[in-house]
């Protein structure tokens, strides 16, 4: 193992899959010659050629649409959507076509694509470079939603996603591409190389989709979280000295319900954290599931800490962001019930 940041880990996963499987191809805006606006595909076109890694017209509909056709042919496309905020023009091809193709053709045709897309805020990107639309995809049958939180996981999950025969949306928390941001925006962010989970094995390895990761064990409270917020949650629990069990979901669909149930039944308290807007965010589903499955174990109301129900504002982004204060107070409240 070496220490990699998240972009390097993703780049490595892509390179490995391009190498191993001649049917894997990468397409998207600026992913080819330039290597992607976040450099996730840097060097890949040079290494694998223009038929394996190529730039596309600026049409998310076209990018996903041709990927559906390529999947039907037998390729395993890995399209990039430059920012999750820009996925909507391609949404119909993703939710009405890719996600339903296996079902509607009774398995005759499949869409084994992995749509990579940077998501989330905290980079002063304003309302169109900061969104977290993951909940929308979890409502659609037939698509898997995967969100890594560390370089180690990013590589292993991305390889699993690419090998998966179902369409996967792979959201990359761009705020932590370069370091595990903990929500203390006025302090410098540590680089990944200092973090335990930047240890990335060389070569091919997989992390199964649908399996959560216990970030730390605890008895007092279960925290359900994913992406950037994993690190914020961890830092806050650390700072408050709460004996929290932090579960990084890694995959929203399919969900590791067993890990969730076991933990909440143990702790009797559950806090859910995400950066996305609150109403009908994935936190709502988690809250409903916990209530349905762990009801009589609950000592306190399941609570959600989320982004607000507004567009992501440019200048007030740290007021919007579900940071240490919001999380800390929610923890205090749950623990005091």
């Amino acid at each position, binding site marked *: 193992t070496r220490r990699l940041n998240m972009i390097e880990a993703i780049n490595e996963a892509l390179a490995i899959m391009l190498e191993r499987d001649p049917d894997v191809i990468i397409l998207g805006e600026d992913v080819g010659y330039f290597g992607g606006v976040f450099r996730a595909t840097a060097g890949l076109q040079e290494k694998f050629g223009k038929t394996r890694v190529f730039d596309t017209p600026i049409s998310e509909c076209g990018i996903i649409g041709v990927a559906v056709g390529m999947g039907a042919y037998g390729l395993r496309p890995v399209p990039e959507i430059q920012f999750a905020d820009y996925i909507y023009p391609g949404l119909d091809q993703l939710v009405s076509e890719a996600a339903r193709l296996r079902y509607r053709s009774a398995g005759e045709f499949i869409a084994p694509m992995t749509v990579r897309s940077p998501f989330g805020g905290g980079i002063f990107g304003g309302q169109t470079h900061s969104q977290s639309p993951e909940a929308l995809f979890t409502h659609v049958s037939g698509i898997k939603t995967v969100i890594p939180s560390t370089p180690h996981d990013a590589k292993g999950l991305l390889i699993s996603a690419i090998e998966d025969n179902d369409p996967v949306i792979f959201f990359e928390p761009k705020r932590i591409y370069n370091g595990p941001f903990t929500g203390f925006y006025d302090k410098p962010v540590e680089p990944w190389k200092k973090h335990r989970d930047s240890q990335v094995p060389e070569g091919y390895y997989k992390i199964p989709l649908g399996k959560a990761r216990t970030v730390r064990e605890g008895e007092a409270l279960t925290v359900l979280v994913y992406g950037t917020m994993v690190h914020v949650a961890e830092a806050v629990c650390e700072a408050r000295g709460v004996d929290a069990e932090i579960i990084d979901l890694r995959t929203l669909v399919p969900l590791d319900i067993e890990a969730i149930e076991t933990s909440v039944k143990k702790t*009797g308290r559950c806090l859910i954290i995400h950066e996305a807007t609150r109403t009908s965010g994935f936190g709502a589903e988690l809250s409903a599931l916990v209530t349905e499955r762990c*009801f*009589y*174990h*609950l*000592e*306190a109301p399941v609570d959600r800490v989320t982004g607000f129900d507004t567009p992501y504002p440019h200048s007030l982004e740290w007021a919007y962001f579900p940071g240490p204060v919001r999380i800390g107070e929610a923890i205090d409240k749950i623990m005091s*019930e």
Partner: protein
Amino acid sequence: KAAAKPTPAPSAPHGRQKVLASPAVRQRAKDLGIDLSEVKPAADGRVRHADLDAFLSYNGANGFASAGT
């Protein structure tokens, strides 16, 4: 147990008397065979584990077996 006791309560004018409690407290009470409406709640109207404990030790003195932890 759909049947509602028509006992009027000041806080719930139209229904049976409501007991406020977390599901975990309700479950424990149920396991212990305690009717929550007989437990004296705290000032905020809610029955907590401590209130159950108090109820148990009070009734324990009257011959109930302790449920332990």
